[in-house]
């Protein structure tokens, strides 16, 4: 596709701003600075989603890199029918769900550890809290583990919805576009996922009530 035509198409699309259209244009032109900007802008949020979905920081890191490569390979296929963010997360979820399917086939009978080390000492990443006290660290770690365990019990469809809505703060419309489902489906899945999650997190929710 010739750049002039691509730019014209992007400008016509109502969902994408002129600034974003220009950014996409730079990505298509293989601009170094644009790709650096892309990585800096989306690295953390894609990693969060990948980590919550896969439960392993190493796998999440691998997937993040694959996702950026896919964005680069497919940027000419971006039509501007949705925002760039939504389009990138659609690619991200496609890659993450593929990884999960591959993982299930390969380790169907194995016990899945949610990023625990061999001593069962919890996840392998740093929390970004500035100066937490020992109690806060302990509580934070405990809650983190509880959330990961609770997410693990959900189906991948329900887990995707919860992560996008309650952790990443996507709107219903964005979730529908990312996951390729209707808004009605988003609502019903979210209701069921929250109900399931409530059962798993009951202990922490009751503590919070006090």
């Amino acid at each position: 596709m010739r750049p002039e035509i691509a730019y014209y198409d992007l400008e016509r699309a109502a969902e994408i701003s002129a600034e974003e259209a220009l950014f996409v244009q730079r990505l298509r032109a293989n601009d170094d600075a644009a790709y650096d900007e892309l990585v800096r802008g989306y690295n953390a949020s894609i990693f969060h989603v990948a980590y919550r979905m896969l439960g392993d920081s190493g796998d999440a890191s691998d997937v993040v890199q694959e996702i950026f490569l896919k964005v680069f390979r497919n940027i000419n296929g971006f039509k501007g029918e949705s925002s760039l963010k939504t389009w990138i997360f659609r690619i991200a979820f496609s890659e993450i769900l593929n990884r999960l399917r591959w993982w299930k086939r390969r380790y169907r009978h194995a016990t899945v550890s949610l990023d625990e080390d061999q001593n069962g000492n919890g996840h392998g990443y740093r929390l970004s809290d500035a100066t937490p006290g020992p109690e806060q660290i302990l509580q934070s770690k405990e809650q983190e583990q509880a959330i990961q365990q609770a997410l693990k019990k959900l189906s991948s469809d329900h887990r995707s919805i919860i992560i996008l809505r309650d952790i990443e703060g996507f709107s219903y419309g964005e979730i529908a576009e990312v996951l390729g489902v209707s808004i009605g489906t988003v609502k019903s899945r979210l209701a069921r996922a929250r109900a399931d999650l409530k059962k798993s997190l009951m202990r922490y929710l009751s503590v919070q009530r006090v």
Partner: protein
Amino acid sequence: MKEVSSNIAILTKQAGKLFSRTEQTLDCDGARQLMSPFIDSMASPSEVAKLELHLVKCEPCQRQLQSFISVRNFLAGVEQPAAPEDLVLESRVRLSQERHKNYFERLENRLSNVLRPLALPAIGGVSLTMLFFGIVLGAMLSNTTVMAHDRISAHEERALVALFKPVRTTSLTMKRFATSDPQDFDEPLMIETHVGDTGKVLDYVVINGTETPEITRWIREQLVLAEFKPATAFGKPIDSKIILSFVAVRSL
């Protein structure tokens, strides 16, 4: 959480006021479907009204709504894991490698597309040129194609006249042959003489005529002293054969 409870209580009171104004009702399943959109502010005004109306009279659904809000707040308050420090760098490096690899592939493909239409004519031209030079050089350099003793047709001889010259006797040798006639030739004598590239006779064979010891001696004497202009191929002296015929000329 107390704040949430008080909010629900306010909503319930407001819903109570609405109760008299609407006849629409909602069962518990329907109410649970609306709870998520409700707490996410994604429910329509009519859905909100219906849900609030139901909550006024349904305590289990109030508790359900409260638990949903708790779940949402609990998840929203969780710390986000920090991405590994080198992830940005690794992503940028991999992306850069892919982008440049792709650039070279694209360049290679473009070059290949440009050269492909020229490939057949170029190969054809080179092949024809090589064939032409092969034939010419083969004809010029081969010693076996034209030899002094080769029998060639008149037609071929005309074509090859510039390529070789046959062996010839010198005038001095001709005179010696004539003056040393043994005078006893009763019949013509014919010999095939093998002449070397120096013009000296290497060997001979009597083809026709009586071979007496005297004649044999005479032949040897004459051939030892004889000199020839050797045959040449492309200007280079070569071995050749010449047939010499002698007859006695007597005056009667």
